[in-house]
């Protein structure tokens, strides 16, 4: 099915390309040629914006500012220094990318609404600077830019169209390559679970900056092209309204698709001209209302939706149509219409037009990026770490103190983990087990004390550095990358195997292709290893709960760890799942990988642990062989209450309160 799909896609792409390049032959009216150029330029920007909005899931209100920087860089270079097109455009890209990095710096530590406001502030500052720095930008008067000149010949509108078209197609290819590579996977990973990304060695900070820089570079290219296209730039173009328009285009067209960006660009460029014609708008609004009523009637009749669910959009579309007949001057209400469209898209068309069409045509099938069919080459999937060093201390925590306000979640805890063993960590809820996990993996910085791993002090390092050092983990509350397939989840774990940079990805160099192939083969092997081979291309969020836990282990194995931390892997699992889990843990151990196991299922802990440490109220109360721990009166007291000295009841299976 995949092959057929890609054939169809290829044929479609060729047709689309032909149509694009033959277009000027059909439409020669300069007004329409200019319109198409604008659509293509917007599309370039939207490809980039989609990396930030669609892939990393952040709201950027600063892209009009970045677009403005691109425009002004080209315009200023032409106006002040008379630079040619071929120098001005690369400068636009470089300067805007630099500003993208500057924007990303404060944005590094914040997400969601904070980031939205930061980017909004950035956009506002840019607009003020363009306005005020008259010596450079000619202030509010703006700058005139002539069409590019090649060999003494100034390009006509149609020739310029070809320049833009070629650059748009190139941008599309480049963006497509980037988002389907390990970089794109990193972007998506940090959207779905920043914590898990960090713990897979994918530094959230670094990749957020990358995403902004790449996104800004495209905004710069688009901006530069826009200057030449409009032949005039002025500060007021790059305002808040334009930013909203860009966002509307991305979400309306459909996130995470290039076709969505094209559709979105088409809509927002055409919209103002559509809205200047009241009769046309009335027709469109009426058609939308009729379609809305029919669709609602159909959905109600099929019982797919309830009246409650459809009443708001229905009232909105019908209201819009009625409103359109009352209006005399539609241009004044342009922003209201944008606003209503945004509201509608946000709540009723979350996957955009392309997503909607996809859902309509092929039901559930989400297209997963080019899965490699069967592993042909033999690649060692799970490295063997057993060595003569078995029996030495691999991880040693000394005098660990973790304080939250007045609470000592860990109080002077010492922990030594012997290489090649399974070390159980148990204790009642709130005893500090998960805190220990988070301190060991660098998510919390301990208040005092230190952690030594393989001879190096790791307390104080970042989670991604610790992960890259060979410490992998799973999470108590599953932290998979939900929108990515099982294979892609493991591939994020394998991110550290990539040495290719963004240029390798853009040019598809041999190095990148080799690394990608090897990683995919290894990912397939790892999925087999944890028993998920049959579900490789399933989206992680659609897997049953037990399988999600196994996938987390698989993803952690991708890191090629020497130490694996399992945080309640059996929580919520059914009995057969638990049996499978125990088998997998044993297999992992046979490869010489040391395991720290936090678990409430005593039968699991006691059957596979070599040593068990018991925590209670942040302190270590016992440590030893499972059998000894089961008989330890202090442990029994901690779990079951009662005082020391009463007849000990051996623990067989106890779930923490």
């Amino acid at each position, binding site marked *: 099915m995949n092959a057929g799909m890609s054939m169809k896609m290829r044929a479609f792409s060729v047709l689309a390309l032909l149509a694009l390049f033959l277009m000027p032959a059909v439409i020669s009216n300069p007004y329409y040629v200019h319109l198409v150029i604008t659509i293509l330029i917007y599309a370039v920007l939207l490809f980039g914006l989609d990396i930030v909005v669609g892939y990393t899931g952040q709201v950027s209100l600063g892209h009009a500012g970045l677009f403005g920087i691109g425009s002004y860089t080209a315009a200023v270079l032409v106006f002040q220094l008379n630079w040619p097109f071929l120098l001005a455009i690369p400068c636009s890209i470089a300067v805007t990318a630099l500003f993208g990095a500057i924007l990303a710096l404060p944005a590094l530590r914040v997400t969601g609404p904070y980031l939205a406001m930061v980017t909004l502030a950035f956009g506002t500052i840019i607009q003020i600077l363009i306005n*005020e720095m008259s010596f450079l930008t000619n202030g509010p008067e703006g700058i005139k830019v002539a069409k590019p000149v090649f060999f003494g010949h100034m390009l006509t509108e149609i020739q310029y169209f070809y320049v833009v078209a070629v650059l748009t197609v190139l941008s599309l290819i480049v963006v497509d390559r980037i988002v389907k590579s390990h970089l794109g996977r990193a972007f998506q990973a940090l959207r779905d679970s920043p914590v898990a990304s960090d713990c897979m060695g994918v530094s959230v900070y670094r990749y957020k900056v990358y995403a902004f820089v790449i996104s800004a570079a495209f905004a710069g290219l688009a901006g530069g092209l826009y200057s030449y296209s409009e032949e005039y730039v002025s500060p007021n173009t790059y305002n808040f309204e334009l930013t*909203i328009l860009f966002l509307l285009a991305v979400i309306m067209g459909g996130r995470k698709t290039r076709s969505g960006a094209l559709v979105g660009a088409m809509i927002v460029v055409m919209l103002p001209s559509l809205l200047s014609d009241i009769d046309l708008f009335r027709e469109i609004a009426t058609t939308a209302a009729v379609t809305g009523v029919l669709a609602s009637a159909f959905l109600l009749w099929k019982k797919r939706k309830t009246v409650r669910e459809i009443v708001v959009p229905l009232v909105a579309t019908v209201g819009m149509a009625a409103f359109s007949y009352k209006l005399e001057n539609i241009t004044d209400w342009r922003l209201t219409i944008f606003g209503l469209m945004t509201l509608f898209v946000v709540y009723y068309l979350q996957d955009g037009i392309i997503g909607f069409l996809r859902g309509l045509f092929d039901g559930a099938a989400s297209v997963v990026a080019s899965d490699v069919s069967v592993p042909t080459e033999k690649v060692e999937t799970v490295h063997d770490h057993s060595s003569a060093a078995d029996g030495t201390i691999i991880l040693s925590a000394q005098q660990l103190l973790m304080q*939250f306000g007045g609470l000592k979640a860990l109080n002077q805890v010492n922990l030594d983990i012997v290489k090649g063993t399974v070390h159980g960590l148990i204790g009642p809820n709130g005893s500090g087990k998960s805190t220990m996990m988070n301190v060991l993996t660098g998510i919390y910085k301990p208040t005092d004390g230190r952690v030594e791993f393989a001879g190096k002090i790791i307390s104080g390092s970042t989670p991604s550095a610790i992960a890259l050092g060979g410490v992998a983990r799973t999470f108590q509350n599953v932290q998979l990358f939900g929108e990515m397939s099982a294979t892609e989840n493991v591939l994020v774990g394998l991110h550290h195997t990539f040495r290719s940079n963004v240029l390798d990805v853009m040019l598809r160099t041999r190095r990148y292709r080799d690394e990608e192939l090897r990683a995919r083969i290894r990912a397939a092997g790892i999925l087999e290893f944890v028993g998920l081979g049959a579900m490789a291309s399933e989206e992680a969020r659609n897997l049953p709960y037990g399988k999600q836990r196994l996938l987390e282990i698989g993803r952690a194995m991708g890191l090629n760890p020497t130490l694996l931390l399992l945080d309640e892997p059996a929580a919520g699992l059914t009995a057969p799942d638990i049996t499978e889990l125990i088998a997998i843990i044993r297999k992992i151990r046979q490869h010489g990988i040391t395991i720290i196991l936090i678990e409430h299922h005593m039968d699991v802990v006691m059957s596979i642990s070599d040593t068990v440490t018991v925590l209670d109220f942040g302190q270590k109360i016992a440590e030893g062989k499972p059998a000894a721990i089961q008989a330890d009166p202090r442990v029994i007291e901690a779990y079951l209450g009662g005082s020391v000295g009463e007849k000990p009841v051996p623990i067989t299976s106890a779930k923490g309160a």
Partner: protein
Amino acid sequence: MEILLQLIISGISLGMIYAVIAFGYQLTFATSGTLNFGQGEALMLGALVGLSLAGSVHGGPYLNYWLMIPLVMIFGGLQGMLVEWIGVRPAIKIKSEFGWIMSTIALAIIFKNVAENIWGKDDLTFPSPLSSTPIQIWGANVQPMQIVVVLGALAMMAAVEIFNRKSIYGKAVVATSNDRDAAGLMGINTSAVITFSYALSSATAAFAGVLIAPLTLTGATMGASLGLKAFAVAIIGGLTSGVGAIVGGLILGIAEELTGYYISSGYKEVPGLVLLLLVLAIKPAGLFGKIAIKKV
């Protein structure tokens, strides 16, 4: 020296306006973890509705300035409820951060556009209820309205604080802020509390609008930059601290007046935004905010 003092005094009155709007951000953030990106527009609508009631733009004046204030606050409350109902509640239901950010922005542009169509695109003067003859304080000219702004802003914030601490409804708000799920389990109608916090938040913004309007011009575009700078204030002070809002407001208000006078009025907006970027880059929880520990 007089000039400096004068700038500081106008900075304080401007800063108190920022503080009130920032306070509005804090109210909704506390109960629901969401913010109204149209907070500036709530202020703008408050000021313009106030103008229609107490000014002559729509055949008025119908009321005097002081009687108009409660009506404007009721209007603000209703507007806030509308925002919550259309823009925030569905997003909370589907747990979409992107959803409420985008929909409150969308509502903000709609409000701005509607205001442009009702009140026009030009800025209008708002009749001042007090004489504009300045009072001399240590040689600096202070407008009586500036003093009213400072007192009014403080009174508004104090009223909300007292309500939250003393009344049983206020305690429901505080409980919801601390732990929405637990408050829900204790029988508090948390969704009503969230709606209420939006109403309160927009009402304070509308109140700030009619306070500031006599000192500046009113118009559909007045909200956007006030809203953004008030967000900067909320961040500088910390989204969880009322004192932080006041301190942040004062810092920004004074910084802006000084920049406007000593550098260029074109750059007046810049210090707030730069401060916002700096605080977020260095101490995202703000000067007075507490850092929440992320549970994994």
